[in-house]
């Protein structure tokens, strides 16, 4: 395979555009497999769910603003908090990070698309349809109502005969397909489609985070999907997995759920930590301190993260030995987090920080990470957890984790990559208002929750009696929650205004070091005109850092313009290996996702006809999808060069 020098000029651009660009109009919307479009769709959809979950939270905060209020019925409150939890954890926090990774991976790795572009589209469509599937239950008044961890027997048929829980179970199984195919796609993309020279010690930390998350998801999602299938058969077909009368075990659910649930917590924070590790150094004008320890800490967190699920169940009557083991593991898991924390602080300390809006979000995240981390240490200490568990202290802790460690980096990340996504900068002035409103609102609202937790307020209560000392703090929390919501509103306003009239951004408005900033903004459909050759972690800072004689080559490399093609490289060293023929835009992912939706709708309606039709449609969609195409090299000799 000869190296083709950059011919320069427009006709390469035009040729690649013709090959890669999605068709205009509705056809393109429904059939596009462009990772950038899918990534942005993921982020936008996740934000719509964030707003839905946020409105649910605000309604609950009104009910809790004072003792004995009667704004909501107990049933309405219980559906609201269940949907709030499900929405934020499954439909916002995970998918929004998938959105970032989808958008960024090929740009960070130096390739033209993900390894399986159609699978990528499928993953998005299923996420969207699963979210809609779940939300249909809301206007019907049949939303899930047993909490986001849905413990039987409360979620079993005897105590919850309506379809509420079936929406939860089927929705989660459906969504699990999306998570699983997405994770597989990330893994293969990482292993096979990195630019030449992008060895694993040169990967951005976001890639480490998403890699770790993807492996975690592949191992953890089956546990919860299994639990959901078992409970569904208990409810609909009379099996007895969780039925005490027939010697079933309610605790089996808790084990399966948390074997998934705890790694999932890391899945929804590790890529966000990656956003910080990659974006923060740009604003500190220096490379990240301790790249290797931080990368290893990311992986170590997930490995230990598989051994701590029991800390969600300390009060269930476990033997002392189990308590001691899982408690120790839960405290030890803090050590990798300490590594990252000190790496970030040192990066700022030894750098020259420029206090832009993204910097404010990313650096304040460090503080919120520490608060959420140390409150995690407190809940990890078994005997004290006997007191803390299921109080508002835990509610405070998990919101510092989910908002502090997910929402703040995500918003900071959007400020950072918005120019790459849209070609425009986000407003800096409104950005500061946005930051301070969110930061103060969040801390005023959520920090006092720790205290009301220490004052003994249990979580998941729709009201409380006066005289328990909880009124003032709850009012404060309600006020803070609304202030935080205004902050989010300012963010959305800034987003829309900048989209219309933001300052034009060049290719590299932040003077950042990584590959995605070497291409024009917004990134062209084909990403890189030539596949770059990478010689360090900071291709765009090499000249100035001058750490070795080697230089990345961003303008000379494989052109690959015979149809949709990208380069496959070897697993560890990223040596060029072969040319991958990439599929074009396709309706098959949408068709398969819709067919699956029909199947799941049939299951919730107890309609054999509907689910039968869905199954046939699924089989047909898969058949069409997998039908061999000569252009993909699937017939005869492959193009192994």
């Amino acid at each position, binding site marked *: 395979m000869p190296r083709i020098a950059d011919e320069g000029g427009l006709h390469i651009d035009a040729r690649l555009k013709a090959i890669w660009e999605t068709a205009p109009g509705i056809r393109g919307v429904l059939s596009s497999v462009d990772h950038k479009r899918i990534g942005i769709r993921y982020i936008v959809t996740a934000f719509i769910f964030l707003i839905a979950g946020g409105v649910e939270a605000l309604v609950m905060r009104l009910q809790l603003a004072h003792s004995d209020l009667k704004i909501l019925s107990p049933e309405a409150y219980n559906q609201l908090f269940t949907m709030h939890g499900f929405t934020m954890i499954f439909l916002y926090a995970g998918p929004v990070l998938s959105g970032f990774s989808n958008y960024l991976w090929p740009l960070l790795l130096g390739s033209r698309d993900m390894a399986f572009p159609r699978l990528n589209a499928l993953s998005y469509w299923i996420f969207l349809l699963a979210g809609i599937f779940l939300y249909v239950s809301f206007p019907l008044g049949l939303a899930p109502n047993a909490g986001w961890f849905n413990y039987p027997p409360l979620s079993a048929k005897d105590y919850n005969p309506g379809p509420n829980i079936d929406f939860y179970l089927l929705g989660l199984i459906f969504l699990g397909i999306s998570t699983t195919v997405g994770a597989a796609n990330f893994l293969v993309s990482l292993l096979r489609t990195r630019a030449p020279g992008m060895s694993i010690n040169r990967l951005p930390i976001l890639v480490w985070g998403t890699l770790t998350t993807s492996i975690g998801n592949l191992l953890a999602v089956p546990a919860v999907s299994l639990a959901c299938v078992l409970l569904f058969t208990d409810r609909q077909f009379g099996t007895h997995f969780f039925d005490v009368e027939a010697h079933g075990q309610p605790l089996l659910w808790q084990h399966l759920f948390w074997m998934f649930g705890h790694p999932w917590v890391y899945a929804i924070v590790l890529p966000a930590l990656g956003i910080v590790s990659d974006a923060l150094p740009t604003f500190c004008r220096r490379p990240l301190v301790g790249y290797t320890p931080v990368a290893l800490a990311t992986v170590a967190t997930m490995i230990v993260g598989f051994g701590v699920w029991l800390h969600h169940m300390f009060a269930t009557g476990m033997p002392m030995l189990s308590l001691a083991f899982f408690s120790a593991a839960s405290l030890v898991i803090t050590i990798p987090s300490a590594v990252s924390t000190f790496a970030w602080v040192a990066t700022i300390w030894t750098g020259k920080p420029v206090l832009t809006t993204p910097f404010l979000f990313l650096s304040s995240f460090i503080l919120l990470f520490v608060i959420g981390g140390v409150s995690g240490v407190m809940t990890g200490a078994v005997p004290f957890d006997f007191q803390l568990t299921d109080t508002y202290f835990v509610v405070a802790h998990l919101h510092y984790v989910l908002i502090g460690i997910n929402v703040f980096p995500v918003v900071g990340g959007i400020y950072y990559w918005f120019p790459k996504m849209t070609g425009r900068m986000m407003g800096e002035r409104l950005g500061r208002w946005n930051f301070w409103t969110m930061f103060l609102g969040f801390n005023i609202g959520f920090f006092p929750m720790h205290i009301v937790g*220490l004052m003994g307020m249990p979580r998941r209560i729709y009201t409380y009696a006066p005289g328990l000392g909880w009124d003032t703090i709850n009012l404060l929390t309600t006020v803070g929650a609304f202030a935080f919501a205004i902050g989010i509103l300012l963010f959305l306003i800034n987003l829309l205004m900048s989209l219309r009239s933001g300052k034009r951004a060049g290719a590299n408005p932040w003077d950042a070091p990584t590959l995605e900033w070497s291409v024009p903004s917004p990134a062209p459909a084909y990403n890189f005109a030539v596949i770059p050759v990478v010689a360090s972690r900071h291709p765009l800072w090499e000249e100035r850092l001058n750490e070795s004689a080697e230089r990345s080559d961003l303008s000379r490399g494989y052109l690959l313009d015979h149809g949709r093609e990208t380069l496959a490289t070897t697993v560890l060293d990223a040596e060029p290996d072969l040319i991958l023929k990439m599929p074009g835009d396709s309706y098959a992912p949408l068709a398969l996702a819709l067919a699956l939706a029909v199947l799941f709708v049939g299951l919730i309606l107890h309609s054999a006809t509907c689910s039968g039709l869905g199954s046939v449609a699924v089989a047909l969609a898969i058949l069409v999808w997998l039908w061999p195409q000569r252009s993909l090299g699937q017939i005869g000799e492959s193009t192994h060069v």
Partner: protein
Amino acid sequence: MTDFHGRQFLVVFASFSVAACSRAPMTFMRTFGPAADPVTSLGWGLTIICCLVILIVGGLLLIATLRARATDAALSSVPIAHPGGGLRWIIVGTGISTVVLLGLVVWTMFTLAAIASAPSAPVFTIEIRAHQWWWEARYLDDTSQRTFVTANELHIPLGKPVQLRLIGDDVIHSFWIPALAGKTDVIPGQTNMAWIQGNTLGTYRGQCTEYCGAQHAHMAEFVTVDSAAAFQQWWEHQLSEAAAPSSAATTRGEAVFLARCAACHTIRGAGAGGILGPDLTHIMTRRTLGAGTMPNDPVSLRAWVNDAQAVKPGSRMPTLDLPQQDLAAVTAYMQTLD
């Protein structure tokens, strides 16, 4: 950012001192028995250490941000550099964190051992069954005649450990008296053991802490720590049967009770033997109705008997729609059940 922290820190401590007094009866930062006290020390230790960590890292972060910040907003005008010395931060910071964490692991394990069992053999056992949404308590004794059943409010003798046998009945609940001990879940299909001891006279509030459906919010329980003599007297009293009604009104009330309430409730001595709801033989000795939903006074009692669904929607107690005279009679009768 960090000056804001300082204020938060003060708020924490101000609130604790408030919490420690009776204005926060559910706090567990001040406890009154050996099943909780070692945990409370650990809790305070953890709280202080964690606040210090937040202050230190927050302070470092603030200094780091302000000390060398570039005033010019144009990023490209600030040169890129790769100064050394960063790794030292990770080594020192992680090293100190590790030592502190290992210390906490040791403290945690010792605390766990300290509360694993009662300091002396428990003096008796209370069998607690958790229902949607109330607590059934059976005081066990070697002689079955001295065993009795009550609901929602326990009494224990001062300074003596008492064993709790927690039995799940419908869904999962969690038993918790923050001033006396941490939570133990009550799970159908398994029996969990716990123990409590009160070293100070008083009544301590707790409530269910595992989400258990519509009325999870109204599932409180109380433990009163009595002197040895008062406790003995209470037990004897609980063993007694209800007195026969002494007036025309209460006689009619008893008849209404037997006709409309006895399918679910027991009144020993009156021939009411229902087991679905709480035993009401001595309901007037309790502080609250509906497991902490309302205070036990005549007005609330009448409201509760008339329409429990209005005050505790979803509870298992139906709306009775009694005629006014019947309602007046049955509440008058119930007020004699002391």
